[in-house]
């Protein structure tokens, strides 16, 4: 088993499939030609760039270069959490809080996975650290976004019920407990579904990649199981942090519901 490198001609050949996309858009007047062009160019440029950057960083095998790219990924994930929400909180506090959460979860879970469990030599080998950090961050941020969106939406809808409890002397965590419950369940469900159905409908991307690269499928499956555990743990931590953080943001120290702290619906 060995892997077949792709040439430029191979990619050009595959790119002809895009003509089908363009033709469909033209035939059905979907007016997506511009969007297709932008998306394709973005994908090619972004992937080519990250390929070059990773090649450079892998060649260095220096902890500081790895840490730097890791930090860029964490900040990008923090920005993504803000932009994906329908009603994000006002101000920079929320952004700082979310990025800090992603930072600690990303470092802790990736550190556990790479440093202790996989144990490559050297322990900071970017070939292991960066892809795993990416997968951990991506899934954690999806969970966090779901929780934050559900919290702000449910709190706005259930405002009367929350304030009824506050008026009866409930602590802010008590008054928000129903909201938190709904939001945390919502945040956890995607990863649970992913674990339950993985391998039946489609092979996960990482496992496919390893198999294409010539790794024994059983070994690839073992890696996938490890990744799933890491992602599930990271998502659970992210969901809890986002839920508790959202309560702190949506209420103040006098236990008032402060819906004025979130932006209007876009």
């Amino acid at each position: 088993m060995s892997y077949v490198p792709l040439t430029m001609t191979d990619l050009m050949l595959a790119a002809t499939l895009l003509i089908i996309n363009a033709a469909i858009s033209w035939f059905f007047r979907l007016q997506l030609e511009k969007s297709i062009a932008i998306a394709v160019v973005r994908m090619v440029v972004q992937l080519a760039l990250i390929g070059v950057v990773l090649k450079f960083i892998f060649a260095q095998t220096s902890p500081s270069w790895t840490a730097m790219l890791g930090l860029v990924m964490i900040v990008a994930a923090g920005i993504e959490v803000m932009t994906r929400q329908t009603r994000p909180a006002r101000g920079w506090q929320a952004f700082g809080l979310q990025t800090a959460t992603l930072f600690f979860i990303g470092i802790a879970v990736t550190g556990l996975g790479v440093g202790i469990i996989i144990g490559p030599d050297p322990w900071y080998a970017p070939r292991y650290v960066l892809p795993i950090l990416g997968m951990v961050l991506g899934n954690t941020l999806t969970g966090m976004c779901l929780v934050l969106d559900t919290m702000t939406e449910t709190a706005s809808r259930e405002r009367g019920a929350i304030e009824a409890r506050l008026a009866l002397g409930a602590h802010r965590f008590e008054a928000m407990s129903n909201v938190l419950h709904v939001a945390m369940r919502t945040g956890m469900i995607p990863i649970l579904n992913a674990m339950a159905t993985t391998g039946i409908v489609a092979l996960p991307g990482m496992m496919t990649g390893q198999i294409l690269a010539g790794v024994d499928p059983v070994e690839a499956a073992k890696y996938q199981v490890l990744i799933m555990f890491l992602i599930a743990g990271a998502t659970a931590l992210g969901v809890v942090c986002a839920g508790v953080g959202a309560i702190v943001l949506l209420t103040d120290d006098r236990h008032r519901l402060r819906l004025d702290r979130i932006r209007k619906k876009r």
Partner: protein
Amino acid sequence: MLRVEHLRIGDLSPLTFKVADGECLAIEGPSGSGKTRILRAIADLDPSQGPIFLDGAERNEMPASEWRHRVRYCAAEPSWWTETAQGAFADTENAESGRLQRLLAALGLAGSLLNRQLSIVSTGERQRLALARALMDDPKVLLLDEPTAALDPQATALVEELIKYQVLSGRGVILASHNRAQIERLAHVRLLLPKRPRAGTTAEHAA
């Protein structure tokens, strides 16, 4: 005794008034004049500036939950967070005592109402249930926002009787209402809010 000193809420003019134990103060004014905002601010549910004292203790001297145990706000349209009213009463200290049954009887509500789905209970019954819930843990001051808005004359009379009894028993009551006759029947003191609040508003002692 509840004392409000130069309370500033948004663009309302500063408010100064007091409500003694066993006294009922009515806040009168057209819609949008700020009745609800004043009650919510006194319960500390919305941010506001200026001291509010209850028996000499300022609200910021105690946790907000403690303040709201003593100064109890009842919304005009009460919301619930449980399937049945039973769930919302279950966590009160006096749930087992006869207090709940007495309150329900005084309000003309059957005990079986507690186990019915709140979504199919009528608006008027929900409003009376909320008043009963508010009285369960013995607040010192009641802030009632249109307590009979959803009620028929018979139920209104029962609720007014209960409010009178609470005043007699020594609770301070602040009543926001635009029912003139009700204010005549219940209030000792009136606070008149101008339509466009400007100059300092203080309570006038009526009768």
